[in-house]
């Protein structure tokens, strides 16, 4: 990244765009605390990233799931890392992404689209205030993509901040509050869009 200065307002939906290699995923990784900037600082809710981790949900390009465990076993393990011992928020998250919580099949036997949806469930089960999503619509059929888009719209309406990387803008045209465009590691454009309900 080169000289990126960016402030995200609470409760807004940001779409991050740019050509391949522009630094979109790197920027998400930095905000999530997975990469450290060589210069500058990142503050989330006024805190260092590490102190704000419980309030962040991160969905990467890779599913971040164990192939040998079932969907719920994966979520139960990650839930314990967030201090969540109950199945209720997990079941709710799985249903919200359109999967069956009773599915005993191991993740290794899931289709790409199902993995993607379970990965989103992993990112949202703890009701994060900031959601970082890297290509959530890739490998997902149109019906599921529309379902995920609706879920994100609901989360935005509930006051959560969403920063999303995607090339499939058609799904988000009416949802996004602002488009951020990166090129060669620089933030080159920041443009708001008119929302129908604004």
């Amino acid at each position, binding site marked *: 990244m080169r000289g990126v200065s960016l402030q995200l307002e609470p409760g807004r939906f940001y779409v991050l765009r740019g050509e391949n290699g522009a630094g979109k995923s790197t920027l998400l990784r930095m905000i999530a605390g997975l990469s450290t900037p060589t210069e500058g600082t990142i503050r989330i809710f006024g805190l260092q990233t590490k102190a704000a981790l419980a309030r962040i949900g*991160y969905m990467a390009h890779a*599913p971040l799931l*164990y*192939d*040998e*465990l079932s969907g719920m076993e994966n979520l139960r393990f990650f839930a314990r*890392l967030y201090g969540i011992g109950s199945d209720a928020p997990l079941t709710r998250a799985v249903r919200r992404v359109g999967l069956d919580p009773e599915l005993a099949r191991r993740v290794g036997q899931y289709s790409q689209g199902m993995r993607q949806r379970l990965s989103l469930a992993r990112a949202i089960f703890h009701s994060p205030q900031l959601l970082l999503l890297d290509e959530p619509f890739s490998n997902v059929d149109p019906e599921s993509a529309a379902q995920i888009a609706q879920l994100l719209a609901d989360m935005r309406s509930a006051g959560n901040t969403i920063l999303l990387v995607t090339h499939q803008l058609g799904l988000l045209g009416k949802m996004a509050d602002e488009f951020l465009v990166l090129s060669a590691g620089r933030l080159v454009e920041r443009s708001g869009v008119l929302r129908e309900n604004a």
Partner: protein
Amino acid sequence: MSPSVFKLAAANLGKDLRLEWRSRDVLNSMLFFALLVVVIFSFAFEPTAEESRRLAGGLIWVAFLFSTTMALNQSWARELRNGVLDAYRVAPAPAEALFLGKCLANYILVLLLECLMAPLFVVFYNLRSVGPYWQLVVIFLLGTWALVINGTFFAAMSIRTRNRELMLPLLLLPISIPAVLAMVTATTAVLTGEFSPAGQIKFLAVFCVVYTTVSFLLFETVLNAE
């Protein structure tokens, strides 16, 4: 309230054992390697019972050391598949819990391997211990922890390198030489009954305490290294 390190370590331990039970990646590779060492050396040496007591300490620990090295890489490799380690790093959970859970899982698996291999060593090398068996148990518990704590730490360090299979033994074996020497000498001492293993056992205990402390202090840096 955030969960304690020990609760999270237990969650990691349970997850690792479940993954291993379903894939058997680690146990199978360790078992076959140790089995090969036992069989090949038994054909190469054909030792008498007396010679066996002198040789077995070295043979046993060489077999377990290399088997453990093979297994440790795999235990971290599954954390890299699908980028799962990143999911841990973005969670508000202490790195030490992951390390402790991983060490305990590896410790259990290596001890299981030792239990499975012990009867084979007895049969193939006609082994009878002259010294007390409880001392052997203490040596194996401490020696295995010494291997696992170092091995798990250095495997985490080398996991993102291109030649990790080569890198782990290069890092681990030189560091482990003092512990391996103590394990071999102590095991030989008990098997032959010629001298006391007390000094080696104390050394192993100190080695375990020092390396456990250092590994825990440094693990977070290793986990987040880019």
